[in-house]
């Protein structure tokens, strides 16, 4: 058992003296994790792709509606597509609706899958554990980092969409999908709320990815498995014969964020979504903890 705790006696004594590091020290660990994650070219490329989606959607709608033509009325494509020309703020909703089914969770799957397995693969995990962090604390820090990435990725999509929407389309009072009007400030508030809900929707797959990441020492394998699970679940959610299973699939209520653009807001599915994400986080978070705190670290 090459557990990190079985370090030479002199070091162990020194470590046990420092076993209860100040909360500040934990923040330091979190900061170093965040910086490491965000400095990776891979992460930056993912965020770049996410930021480009609203730009593409915005330009496509602009070109299509040039010269006073209205956008395609068939109602195809992501939700809110037809309203973008009324109000640039709708580009935020469209961009999130377009990226939530695949781009966003894929990015989260890559970061979460890499969290532990990537360190193990690069041989840096045991050095991390030599520091008096403790495995539980390290895992929590990793999970917090992944969740911070969820929020950052969502805010980047929303922010990019807001900028593109403001540049290409008029802003102003907003017609909700229920047909009522709300002020631009309230619309902006709802857009922020939607971004937070979308980020929270990714908490489930983040926990799942972290669990997968504790199972293997290969970062690539963990990422591929997580993204594979994502695709499988999305397909299962489309099969009508499996409707009994659907409410338990983490992606089932993802698009319920659209209910925040109703007036009054329809909370039922939103609450179900958040409950489900919390359940996934609890189940796979604790499974990751059970695995990570008891497994042999050989790399």
């Amino acid at each position, binding site marked *: *058992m090459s557990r990190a705790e079985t370090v030479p006696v002199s070091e162990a004594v020194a470590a046990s003296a420092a076993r209860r590091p100040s909360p500040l020290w934990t923040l330091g660990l979190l900061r170093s994790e965040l910086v490491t994650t965000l400095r990776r070219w891979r992460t930056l490329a993912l965020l770049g792709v996410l930021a480009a989606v609203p730009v593409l959607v915005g330009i496509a709608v602009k070109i299509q*509606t040039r010269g006073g033509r*209205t*956008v395609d*009325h*068939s*109602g195809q494509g*992501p*939700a*809110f597509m*037809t*309203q973008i*020309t*009324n*109000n640039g703020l709708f580009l935020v909703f469209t961009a999130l*609706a377009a990226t939530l089914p695949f781009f966003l969770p894929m990015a989260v799957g890559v970061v979460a899958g890499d969290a532990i397995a990537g360190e193990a693969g690069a041989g840096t995990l045991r050095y991390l554990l030599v520091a008096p962090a403790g495995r539980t604390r390290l895992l929590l820090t990793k999970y917090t980092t992944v969740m911070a990435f969820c929020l950052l990725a969502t805010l980047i999509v929303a922010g990019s969409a807001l900028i593109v929407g403001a540049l290409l389309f*008029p802003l102003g009072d907003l*017609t909700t*999908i*229920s*047909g*009522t*009007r709300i002020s631009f400030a309230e619309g902006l508030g709802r857009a922020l709320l939607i971004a937070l809900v979308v980020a929270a929707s990714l908490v489930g797959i983040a926990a799942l990815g972290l669990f997968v990441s504790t199972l293997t020492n290969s970062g690539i394998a963990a990422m591929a498995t997580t993204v594979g699970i994502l695709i499988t679940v999305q397909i299962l959610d489309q099969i009508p014969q499996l409707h009994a299973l659907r409410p338990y699939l983490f992606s089932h209520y993802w*698009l319920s964020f*659209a*209910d925040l653009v*109703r*007036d*009054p807001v*329809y909370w*039922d599915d939103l609450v179900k979504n958040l409950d489900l994400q919390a*359940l996934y986080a*609890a*189940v*796979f978070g*604790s*499974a990751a*903890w*059970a*695995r990570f*705190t*008891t497994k042999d670290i050989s790399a």
Partner: protein
Amino acid sequence: MAPYESDDAVDAARVDAAGDEERHAARRKAARYAVPVAVVGVAAATIGLVPALAASGDPDLPRITAQQLIEKIAKSDVQQMSGTVRIDTDLGLPDLGGLANNLSSAAGKGSGDGSSADPRSQLTSLVSGTHTLRVAADGPEKQKLSLLESGSEYSLIHNGKNVWGYDSKTNDVYHGTSADSGKEHRAEPPATPKDFADQALKSVDGTTSVTVDGTERVAGRDAYKLLIKPRQSGTTVGAISIAVDAKTGTPLKFTLTPKSGGAAVLDVGFTQVSFAKPAASTFDFTPPKGAKVTEEKKDSAAHKHAPEPGRDFAKGMNGADVLGEGWTSIATFDTGAKGGLPTGSRGGDFGGFLGSLGEKVSGKFGKGTVFSTRLVNALITDDGKVYAGAVTKDALVKAANEGK
């Protein structure tokens, strides 16, 4: 020797300690893996038990006779309310999905009106599946009905003289005025439990038994359960159960079960209801910029007869003769299309497709095809007559024979 001995002892102790540690580690591992398992267990128990706990305990309400309850519904004068309604329709129709949509939009275009915001093209979707609606009302002048879809919403807003339909998916707006139709004009198609209950209570006569069947809680409110059962044979209607709010007399839930048993054909109930005045802004509508606005055609008489899913499907038809009375009434009309299916002229393939859904019957009247659902059956004879009603196949054939 002594040092060696002591070394041995230490080694033995080490081995023991290592064994202990291994056993300890195995126990610890098992204990830790028990945590996610326990979380799953607690979640499963919560999902299983909470609805059971919430459903337990019917409210204790003073006893009331069926007559008093019907009077309570009639006297009920709720002007202001809002709520969420869930409609479950299971007519046993094949799930045509996109095909049905195509057909209805084709029909819409056929009548020279392609707007997806037209109430007629929207509300046909209620005929099958599960839908969530929102209703709000503030007096006879202001009503709103919204059909909640994933990522979009269809709203029908009646405010004073204006009737607006807004489909957020396509950004289409439909505008009509209710002034010419007078006060009796109904902006809303039947969608709330009250609409269905009113229809059902109209048919309460000698052919029906009406009882109060205990109490229940609907949308967090105490309610009486009114049970309506047809006494006649030959109808496909098994029973109708209406939950009536004990305080206001408003029907909160309407369930229609077929005689053949199984799931309800129609289940309409509030999942959330409030009798407070809805915000005035709920009923304000201005077409958003860039929306395509379609004006109502003045001659659209059909508008008043929005498609009525459910039992009174037959009665709602224009220009139909009604045979029989009560639950076994059968609507009949002549399509004038000799040669069977009225769609036959639209192409052999499609007619053949429809024919394959029906069942060939023959009798004194000649030959025909019966189309069955779990509630409504229809007989289309080869000489173009249609008989339809919430009655059994045999009753249709009998009616056709007598009509000859």
